[in-house]
């Protein structure tokens, strides 16, 4: 069993077999959560560094808990308080962490491709925790796992992503993973927030949410990035609410057992109404719990070995 790579940079480059392997590896980790001792000694003596160039609470905390439950030592670096503000380059920061014997570097960066640059330059395992508009692979995996857990399958599932597809790395990772696993993926949102030519990824585009929601087994609602509203991509928040908020009324048109998901943080009353967020269809808190188990599985599958460096040298 192997992912055949030292890093997790995105889901675009994993194949169906890899995704299946990750899905099947999650359950044993999730079953640890109900034990009296929730830790295992699996990553004892390994060092995990979280390097976040963008603010994050849930993703960073989730990775930290995942690593600690596997007994790794965790160091958190947030950029506001590091030498990055003194002008250090990304690669130099990475090299410094490697000199301190970091085995994993978990990075979030506003520029797409930043994790890949680190991966090319370091022996440590690099895990992308979100880069620009590119990918957020562990969020994609935890969404995939939550759907799999609830619906018992991915193939043939109708999954609808709603909102700002253009700026959303979560949407990209969802689309890669879900289409590979055989789900029917659709997106719905204002035309200005749907990337051109997205149909070429095998995705159906809707501009009318009421229409889109009818066939869905899963509705994954993305956060409206209010900080981008100054780009004037839609006329007003009030109009967005009117046309694209998932309300109880709109949910009424969907299948009764439709799953409602949101990667968080939620803007209640904007992309999702409070009533929907708190409804029995919503699995938003379970996504958070699953996130820890999924990240534990990823850390396990990417575990560095004594011989890893040698093997890599041989490949080069």
């Amino acid at each position, binding site marked *: *069993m*192997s*992912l*055949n790579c*030292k890093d997790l940079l995105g889901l675009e480059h994993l194949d169906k077999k890899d995704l299946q392997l990750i899905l099947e*590896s999650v*359950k*044993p*980790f999730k*079953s640890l959560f109900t*034990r*009296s*001792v929730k*830790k*295992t*000694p*699996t990553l004892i003596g390994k060092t995990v560094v979280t390097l976040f160039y963008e603010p994050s609470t849930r993703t960073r905390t989730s990775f930290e808990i995942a690593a600690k439950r*596997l007994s790794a030592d965790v160091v958190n670096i947030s950029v506001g308080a590091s030498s990055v503000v003194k002008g250090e380059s990304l690669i130099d920061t990475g090299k410094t962490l490697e000199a301190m014997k970091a085995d994993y570097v978990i990075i979030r960066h506003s520029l797409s491709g930043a994790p890949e640059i680190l991966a090319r330059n370091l022996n440590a395992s690099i895990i992308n925790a979100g880069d620009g508009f590119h990918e957020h692979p562990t969020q994609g995996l935890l969404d995939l796992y939550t759907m799999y857990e609830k619906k018992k399958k991915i193939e043939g599932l109708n999954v609808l992503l709603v909102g700002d597809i253009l700026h959303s790395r979560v949407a990209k990772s969802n689309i890669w993973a879900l289409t590979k696993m055989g789900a029917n993926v659709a997106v719905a949102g204002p035309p200005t927030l749907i990337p051109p030519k997205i149909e070429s990824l095998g995705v159906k585009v809707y501009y009318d949410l009421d229409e889109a929601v009818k066939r869905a087994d899963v509705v994954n609602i993305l956060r409206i990035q209010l900080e981008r509203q100054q780009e004037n991509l839609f006329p007003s928040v009030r109009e967005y609410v009117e046309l694209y908020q998932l309300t109880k009324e709109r949910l009424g048109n969907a299948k009764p057992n439709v799953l409602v998901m949101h990667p968080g943080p939620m803007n209640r009353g904007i992309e999702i109404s409070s009533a929907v967020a708190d409804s029995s269809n919503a699995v938003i808190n379970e996504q958070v719990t699953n996130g820890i188990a999924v990240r534990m599985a990823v850390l*396990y*599958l990417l*575990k560095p*070995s*004594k*011989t*890893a460096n040698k*093997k890599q040298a041989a490949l080069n």
Partner: protein
Amino acid sequence: MSEILLDAAAFDAAIKKVAKDIFNQNKNIADLAVVGVQNKGVLIAKRFLSELCKIAKVSQETVPFGILDITLYRDDLDDFGADMPLIKDTEIPFDISRKNIILVDDVLYTGRTARAALDVLTDFGRPKCIQLAVLVDRGHRELPIEARYAGVRKVIDGKVKVECKEVDGRDRVIIL
């Protein structure tokens, strides 16, 4: 070239012997629980349990049964390279505190699996005691661990393979 250590009849006799030994030392069945180590230890544990219940004249449902996987507790995970071992299910659906646990594996060899299994169990709570039962104790210990019950004890240099009806179609133990 392989040599047969236990044929079907000897296999059955070994199971019965261990079950009897467990019964003789644990007269209070109500305090017992049986836990098998993945993979083959689970099958052997079920055999021990069923024989034990026959001897004690109790129904099998009265004795709690669990399975455990040691993968996350192995001491050699650093040696696996990119190919990490598959994690299997651990299900201990009862409170292990104050239980006398019969921990079961098919073969006792270096003792490292038993060491890891002890760590898994103690992470679930504090049992009254843990007793180790195996089908074959083949010697070559690397840790100070011994089985209280064994179907057969013999120092074996080759590779020992346990076959069970449920998955291999027949019961036997061979030396490869």
